């Protein structure tokens, strides 16, 4: 199974990697328990920074698509196929949509919502939540 990264694409490199690993799982090109290359190997092969690949692996691990077993390496998660179907971005969008609707009903304008959203996000980023 081969992954292809386009450095000129507008999609961030780590997101391309996450997307392609998920696609590989969904199309059964890699299955549960299959070993994956180390961060260093993949970064060197794709000529990317180790941190970029590490970020992609971290997101895949968060989504339970892959799992790291200490020194033994990284493997495809036993429930990777089901977990790939869960679209966290979609879930976040629908939650936000619901919140914005209730705020509008309460009479808050769009610009006030934007400012409030920005402030909350900034505060959370500073606090490191």
């Amino acid at each position: 199974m081969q992954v292809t990264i386009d450095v000129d694409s507008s999609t961030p490199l780590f997101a391309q990697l996450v997307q392609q690993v998920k696609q590989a799982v969904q199309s059964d090109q890699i299955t549960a328990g299959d070993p994956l290359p180390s961060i260093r190997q993949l970064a060197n092969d794709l000529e990317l920074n180790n941190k970029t690949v590490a970020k992609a692996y971290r997101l895949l691990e968060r989504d339970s698509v892959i799992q790291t077993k200490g020194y033994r390496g990284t493997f495809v998660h036993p429930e990777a196929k089901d977990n790939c179907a869960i679209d966290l971005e979609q879930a976040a969008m629908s939650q936000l949509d619901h919140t914005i609707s209730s705020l509008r009903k309460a009479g808050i304008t769009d610009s006030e919502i934007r400012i409030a959203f920005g402030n909350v996000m900034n505060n959370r980023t500073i606090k490191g939540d």
Partner: protein
Amino acid sequence: MTLDILFYIAFFGQIVLISFIMPRKIDKAAHYVLNNFPAENYPKLYPMPYENYEKQYKYFVLLCRAVLIIGVVLLGLFVSGVFGSDMQRAVPLGYFFVQYLPLIMIEISSRKHLKLMRNDEARTTRKAVLQPRRFIDFVPPRIGIAAIFLYISFAILAIFVELFDTGTSNGFSNLAIITLADIFFLGIIFWNLYGKNQDPYRSNETRLEQIRSLTKSLFLINIAATSFAFLTLLVNFLSIEVAESISLVCYLQLVALLGMPSLKFDHVDFDVYKKDEAVI
């Protein structure tokens, strides 16, 4: 006298093998690539102007001839008696390093060549295989087991010699040299396994095959080096009289044979060096 004649034959073998047969093989391989994969059809294979390759090749041939002549002169000095039997160890060993100068020159040129290839690469897409390359998958099991077994045996012998020897053998220093050589070889293997891909066009299959061949070759050299060190230590410890110079020359030839670069191109996918087709 018989030992001297045997030494001449062995030294002649070293000269012919490393400074005549090996360069001829490299010459044959270079011509095979140049004739079958010309710059017009495979432009990515030649990041430098063709004349530069011709110039480098000319220097290589000249250097090989010079080293061959030096070897013949040295042999003549031995046969004529200018060099005595006390030189039969130092001269072949020193000459062995000189013999590798043309190969070192090739290695430096190929590094430069690959660097230019990487600089020339205009692709915006990069590919990688989602499969780990594990060291263990590249070591032939029998060779790996033999290397480990030999190293452990040598370490036991070195410790034994240090404990019971009268002081003529250097068990620990030999063990340290072999250990350092092993670490160096492992470093080369790991660098090839996990390091940056030197040739940006090389296919994954070609890369794996080249790593496999390199690993096997380095393990065999390791086995030869450990065996030689083991036997030398044992012979010194038991105070057996043997012609050390002859065994050294034979050993150097064995190392040269085992370390001979793979010049077969069956597994190399040359299509990757073709010109990219224009996208309309």
